[in-house]
């Protein structure tokens, strides 16, 4: 870090350290302050709501003064409901399932894409990168909505699948309810989510694969590894950071996704975002909605934290 101090800076050591500390505090502090105000504080409010009781218009304060006595009313009832009511459990499981499937699909399509993009001639790489990002220039809603046309009756993709007879196979696999009908099925949901989130998989993978030292593949070949072995034993392990980053960028938003299931998913594909929406806007049950949200966050954060800890320990062991 000391290299970051410009040599032109003068003054005694303590002063310089103080200046450095200030600079660092500002650089790190401002985003953290932002997160504190606009993430942690709202999250605290949400947690607060989740343990309170719904009043007429809004949740009641958990701190109250009744007859001069301070009272704290904490209601864990919603948590009990979330864990006992089948509806929530199913919605969570199905959210995690579709997010996992989407992540797998994105990885499956995105990895070769990123790989060949990273290995393409340096001259055309910017163009390929541009093509990946180009869809962002159109509204997200519009792009998802377009799939309705493609998969609906008479849609291009639908017609193609019917003509090739693939719809029979898909129905057999349970991806669609019955042959010829593609909308409002797990298939349409996963296709919509994979399509939307694919760039989030490709970009970190590309960044990772592009900086890989290609001589390592030559070294692998030199030591007797064929192309597949070299890929599997060198390229894949070295791109692990990219795989993890891409998978998280796809998985996490997919779990809580609301718009795509709403537009493309059917009643078969109940996802937690939908449940949350219903609790909040239809049932007007803020505490229940907050509980669902808190549990959703815990569901994602706890495994992540465990995974990170494991990673750190594995790193430590390596030393």
């Amino acid at each position, binding site marked *: 870090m000391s290299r970051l101090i410009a040599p032109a800076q003068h003054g005694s050591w303590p002063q310089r350290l103080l200046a450095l500390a200030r600079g660092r505090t500002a650089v790190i502090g401002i985003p953290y302050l932002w997160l504190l105000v606009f993430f942690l504080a709202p999250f605290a409010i949400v947690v607060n709501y989740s343990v309170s009781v719904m009043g007429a218009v809004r949740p009641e304060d958990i701190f109250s003064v009744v007859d001069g006595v301070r009272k704290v009313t904490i209601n864990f009832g919603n948590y009990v409901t979330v864990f006992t009511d089948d509806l929530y459990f199913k919605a969570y499981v199905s959210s995690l399932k579709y997010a996992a499937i989407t992540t797998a699909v994105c990885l499956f399509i995105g990895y070769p894409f990123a790989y060949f993009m990273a290995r393409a001639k340096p001259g055309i790489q910017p163009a390929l990168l541009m093509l990946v990002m180009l869809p962002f220039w159109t509204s997200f809603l519009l792009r998802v909505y377009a799939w309705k046309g493609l998969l609906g009756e008479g849609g291009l993709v639908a017609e193609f699948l019917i003509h090739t007879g693939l719809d029979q196979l898909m129905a057999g696999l349970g991806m669609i309810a019955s042959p010829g009908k593609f909308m409002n099925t797990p298939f349409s949901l996963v296709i919509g989510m994979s399509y939307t989130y694919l760039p989030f998989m490709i970009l970190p993978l590309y960044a990772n694969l592009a900086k890989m030292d290609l001589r390592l593949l030559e070294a692998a070949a*030199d030591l*007797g590894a064929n192309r597949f072995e070299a890929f599997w034993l060198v390229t894949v392990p070295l791109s692990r950071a990219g795989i993890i980053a891409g998978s998280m960028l796809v998985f996490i938003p997919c779990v809580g996704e609301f718009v795509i299931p709403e537009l493309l998913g059917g009643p078969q594909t109940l996802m937690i975002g939908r449940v949350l929406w219903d609790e909040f806007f239809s049932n007007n049950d803020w505490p229940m909605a907050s509980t669902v949200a808190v549990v959703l966050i815990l569901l994602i954060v706890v495994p992540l934290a465990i995974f990170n800890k494991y990673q750190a320990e594995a790193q430590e062991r390596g030393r």
Partner: protein
Amino acid sequence: MTTQAYLSVEDVVKDFSGVKAVNHVSLDIAKGEIFALLGSSGCGKTTLLRMLAGFETPTSGRIVLDGVSLSEMEPYSRPINMMFQSYALFPHLSVWDNIAFGLRREGMAKDRIAERVESMLKLVQLGKYAKRKPHQLSGGQQQRVALARSLAKRPQLLLLDEPLGALDKKLREETQIELVNIIRDVGVTCVMVTHDQEEAMTMATRIAVMSEGRILQVGPPADVYETPATRFVADFIGNVNLMDGQLTVDEADHCVITCADCQHHVGHGITGSLDMAVSVAIRPEKIALSREAPGGAYNCVQGTIRATAYFGSFTVFHLSLASGASLKVSVNNAERHREDPLNTGDVVWAHWSDSAHVVLTQ
């Protein structure tokens, strides 16, 4: 030097879209040799090495190792291993796994892999570091891991690409000898690529000097240094004074070459016609300096010291001659303090024996 060819490079050409990186190269390398390809960057030495490893395919010509043509063989099936420039160790694997990588690809039994890896670790004295990752090792240790990895499969041919290029000078000198000892112990035939002539001369049994895709001269280090075949080789290897002149006397036992500043009396005849233009190459350490004229008309020249460069063990004097040409003279500092030190501006005589010259016609 007659060699029974173990590795034969037969009229190999590598054409990179019109540029001949390697231009009709033929080489015969004997079993157990340490052979160095020496040249400046872009001379084609690395391309030639990569063709041996299988990373490049010759445009024409053949490479034969121990009677087997390598032309159609993929890199991964060649009995050849390479120690890469800056090592190319797998960063995600431990030292142990790096060395075992090639053995596992062979499908060797686990206990035999363990045995081989242990013996390799012992060979390069890295037993304690087996569990470390490459980034936790120093440059010298990484170099040894790379060597162990490339030797683990007991290759028929070991390729070294700038083997010590990433080490600092002091460590490089120690490692040169260590590396040669290990290669000798293992007894593997070795082709190395280097741009560092000291490295080539210290390590190799024979050197091939390359320039612009061609091999200019092949021979043991001392031959290449003392009897360079061309002006380019003379100039490329070590320091040299090149003087252009004409052949004025050519007898069986001597010849005389007249240059602008002096006449060279060379102690052997050459094949050539009188008055032909030739160059005389004299190494700086073959020339002596004195204040008095050495007597005789040949092999001496008077000059003024224009600059001195002190290297510790020797000093190089840059003399300017009457014609304006300059002459480098290297003087060993055998004594700690010279009684009569030579200084810049002094007028001195440079002289040399009649065996100091190399007469070059090309």
